[in-house]
């Protein structure tokens, strides 16, 4: 094998190796990618009353607008409770019929008082008899 040919082969091998390593790293990063960061995604601001009445009026259309989006919901806190895992649920007044139920991220502490106006940020997962938000945080003012 000539000197030149050997050199070409070396370059090809190096390039292939570099590509494999890059692809492997990209795949690894992709595989381990973190969950969406609710704190740093620009939310859609909406009043609790509007959110619930939009869902009550037309669920499919409301899903187009809100489903799986990060929402920042403002409304009156009417109840705080816990789910079976011990995570906090904040219930915001909606239309009188339906409410907005927000499951707080386990790490979030709060000192919100019922019957006071609050703003919660979380991911909307849809509507049953209430609108559900998960992985909620209380945004900084």
């Amino acid at each position, binding site marked *: 094998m000539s000197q030149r040919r050997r050199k070409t082969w070396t370059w090809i091998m190096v390039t292939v190796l570099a590509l494999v390593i890059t692809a492997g790293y990209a795949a690894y990063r*992709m*595989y*381990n*990618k*973190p*969950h*969406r960061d609710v704190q740093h995604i620009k939310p859609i601001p909406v009043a609790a009353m509007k959110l619930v009445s939009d869902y009550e009026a037309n669920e*499919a259309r409301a*899903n187009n607008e809100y*489903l*799986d989006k990060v929402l920042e919901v403002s409304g009156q806190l009417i109840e705080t*409770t816990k*789910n*079976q*895992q011990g*995570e906090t*649920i904040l219930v915001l007044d909606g239309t009188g019929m339906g409410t907005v*139920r927000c*499951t707080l991220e386990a790490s979030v502490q709060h000192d919100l008082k019922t019957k006071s106006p609050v703003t919660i940020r979380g*991911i*909307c*997962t*849809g*509507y*049953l*008899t*209430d609108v*559900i938000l*998960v*992985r909620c945080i209380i945004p900084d003012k």
Partner: protein
Amino acid sequence: MKKQLAGLLVLFLALNAPAQNILLTKNGKISFYSRAKSPEKVEADNNEVSSVFNTETGDIVFAVLMKSFHFERALMEEHFHENYVESNKYPKSTFKGKIINMSSVNLSKDGVYPVTVEGEFTLHGVTRKVSYTGSLSVKAGKINATSKFSIKLKDYNVTIPSLVADKISEDIDISVDCRYEPKS
């Protein structure tokens, strides 16, 4: 869509029945996992399950938002919603049915009562008649419904891409755990 509306109507009617026989929860738990051959656990939890249970007739309804299923791994969660259950297209899963042996259950006495439930299960836009076993446990007046059963993905037209077919089992184990409160 019509089916979903009918499901909600049932839920709504159940909610409006006389209060004393009606138990409900808005934060029941449903988990599933795939008995996969991969070392990676394919499992997810949903803690926002709505359920209404009429203790007199045995009528029982569960409603689940698919997007509330949460995985440890973000990529898995994304694939689940986009490629498998198509949560944008089919945002809900419901079960409406009846406990057929309510006569053998005494809810005023502490204990664990085996039950059989029959009804219609809707997932990924497919509705099937099903029958599963579970139990009702009564402790200090609190009623807890649990069940473990498995479903076949192909029964609900959920297809596994061939690339990962050896990692995800065709059978998915589902467990239900709902602690009820009386309707206020």
